[in-house]
């Protein structure tokens, strides 16, 4: 196979290019002619690295396909997922999938795709349920990716589908039936058919000179307060950068009821508990706050500097 590989794809690319579907040939480092004449070699010609064992592959092979390929054995109901969702997901996505702040909305938005402000949710937009399982497993919860068990992923997936009225509360989502879940917008996508716009290179008198009008300019909201910069605080804040990297994710917006620095009332009791207690919570985690804000590469000293920064802003 390997010897003819480049030939096959060169011909394939040529065919594609001649149809005008993806006229990409002129732009690569190699032209079709160069591919055809470039040196071909056998599989394993270099033999660098090691052969991957089944066990090694299993540890990293996490992808799931719409046909269910890659799903592990198991299953769970939306009911199983309710408390988990509330604990692991609701602080950003809202208890009903409505989204907190700028974090993604997960449910609702049916029929909104043609509106001026479409709401693209799992229910209104996503074509496959497999994508939900795959993404929750690979990337969620945001601060602790790949921390959920397979059963927990089934449970949360089922619950998000339930929030979108796609399954019943007691429906058990399993390895065998996930691919059969029919998503409302599964036929809503089509393959790239650009260029979809054909413009002309006109050079003179391309439109009526008097017809040119400005239709929009950036709007500066007069009601918006001018940002007050506290220069003293900015300069004397060694932990600020760490705070922004590790803590601001939740603490700047108050996501998950995280107290916002500068809110003296919210911090009064916590600060009264002592700096050591705050440091301990920041390093070890507390409630839904993961250890070191999920950024385990930070040293204890760096986390402490961020705690001191927060205290400096929040002490009454």
């Amino acid at each position, binding site marked *: 196979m390997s010897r003819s590989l480049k030939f096959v794809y060169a011909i394939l*690319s040529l065919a594609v290019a001649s149809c005008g579907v993806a006229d*990409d040939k002129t732009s690569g480092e190699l032209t079709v002619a160069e591919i055809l004449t470039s040196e071909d070699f056998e599989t394993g010609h270099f033999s660098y690295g090691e*052969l991957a064992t089944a066990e090694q592959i299993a540890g990293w*092979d996490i*992808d799931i396909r719409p046909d269910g390929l890659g799903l592990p054995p198991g299953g769970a109901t939306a009911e199983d997922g309710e408390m988990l969702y509330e604990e692991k997901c609701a602080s950003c996505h809202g208890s009903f999938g409505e989204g907190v702040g700028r974090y993604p909305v997960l449910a609702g938005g049916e029929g909104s795709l043609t509106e001026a402000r479409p709401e693209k949710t799992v229910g209104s937009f996503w074509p496959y349920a497999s994508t939900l399982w795959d993404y929750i497993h690979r990337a969620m919860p945001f601060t602790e990716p790949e921390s959920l068990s397979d059963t927990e992923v089934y449970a949360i997936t089922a619950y998000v589908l339930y929030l979108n009225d796609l399954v019943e509360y007691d429906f058990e989502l399993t390895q065998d039936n996930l691919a059969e879940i029919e998503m409302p917008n599964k036929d809503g996508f089509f393959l*790239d058919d650009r260029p979809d716009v054909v413009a002309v290179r006109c050079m003179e008198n391309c439109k009526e000179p008097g017809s*040119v009008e400005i239709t929009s300019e950036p709007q*500066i909201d007069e009601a918006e307060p001018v940002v007050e910069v506290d220069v003293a605080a900015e300069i004397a804040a060694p932990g600020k950068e760490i705070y922004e990297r590790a803590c601001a994710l939740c603490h700047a917006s108050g996501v998950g009821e995280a107290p916002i620095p500068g809110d003296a009332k919210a911090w009064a009791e916590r600060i009264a508990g002592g700096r050591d207690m705050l440091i301990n919570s920041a390093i070890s985690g507390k409630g839904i706050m993961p250890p070191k804000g999920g950024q385990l590469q930070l040293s204890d000293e760096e986390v402490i500097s961020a705690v001191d920064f927060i205290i400096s802003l929040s002490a009454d």
Partner: protein
Amino acid sequence: MADRLRGDKRMGEETINTKNLLETISREGEKLPRSERRDFLKQGLLLAGGALAGATVANTARADGSGIPPSVPNWSKSLGPGVLTNPYGRPSKYEDHIVRRNVPWLTADRIASISFTPLAELSGIITPSSLVFERYHAGIPQIDPSEHRLMIHGMVDRPIILTVDDLKRFPSTSMIRFLECPANGGMEWRGAQMDALQFTHGMLSCCEWTGVMLSTLLQEVGLKKDAAWVLAEGADGAHMSRSIPMEKAMDDALIVYAQNGEPLRPEQGYPIRLINPGWEGNTCVKWLRRLEVGDEAWYHREETSKYTDLLADGRARKFSYVQECNSVVTFPCPEKPLTEKGRYEVQGLAWSGKGKIKHVDVSFDGGVNWRPAKLKGLVLPKALTRFGLEWDWDGSPALIQSRAVDETGYVQPTYTQLRDARGSSSIYHKNAIHTWRLYDSGKVTNVQIT
């Protein structure tokens, strides 16, 4: 004053103390009409933030004109620091305002977010590694290269695991190619919104990339019959993943470990990333840890929920990989206004994911008449191409535009044409002709026109 605040070359001529700067901004702002004042204050505050980091060093430099002819400057009459003062080098302290910036309201946090390249401050076609725009879905993983592995498996004869050193033993290839987020300019679909080139077009960079052709690696592992797609996956917390068609994988896709001659920056995927020349930046998966060969696409989150283009009729275009032909004038622009009447070289950048730039035309009257610009320096496929045009400014207001044509004959469209075809909810792939409004004062703002 305004020029200096915008980062003009005279930035270092006065003590840059942030507190003083803020006071000066506020004082100067009082003299302006109300409508312009707020704009001015905002730009000043932005710069003050940027100047903060360099405030201490800048404080020591006081320019008093004693170095201008006929006087001889002090640096010509003394010794400077020796070798290894900065072992890895750094820009002049007078250029501290040239930094990436972000738009805080765009994203919920700075972990899954984006920053913008300061295009107005750059010359030629290469983006310095330090200024390449950033896009993360789970922050920058802190990878120890000795423990990083690339696994290639799936429908292959010989699944393998490579170290970074293994990769570097393969025959290497270098190419200069642009990198652009498909959301570049996405904030402008519903009308002009951002008042700086950095924010209207700054999800764009161009580097020399060095690595191994993906086709070489796929030949090395041997493809099974029906192999048609490659899944690329990152080692970051988001395990960023995209399905790449085999045609592209066997064409010009490159697994890179270096940019602009140095090891990849952590922000750009250290120790290795995928580069799909001319395609959406997100397909160029960073911190690459795995390539799986399969017979169908995976339809993961970043190719269904995101990075699909919603049209007015409610349908969405999928696998819209190519970044179509685009261009923008980089001088003048809001960050680089004109200072006086006279002769200028208007400059800009053009690029196409389908090949080389063939022509760029510039209009000063909002697209009524166009003049061909000169393509300058290297004109490479799927790379930024710089253009320039000599222009005598008589002090009149103008509507300045550029329009690029690539070697396939594709002509960059207008906003009206794009919206007629797609509506205004696509978010991605906005490559419309851009308009700068030049005032008689020399000030430049972002506008959209009929």
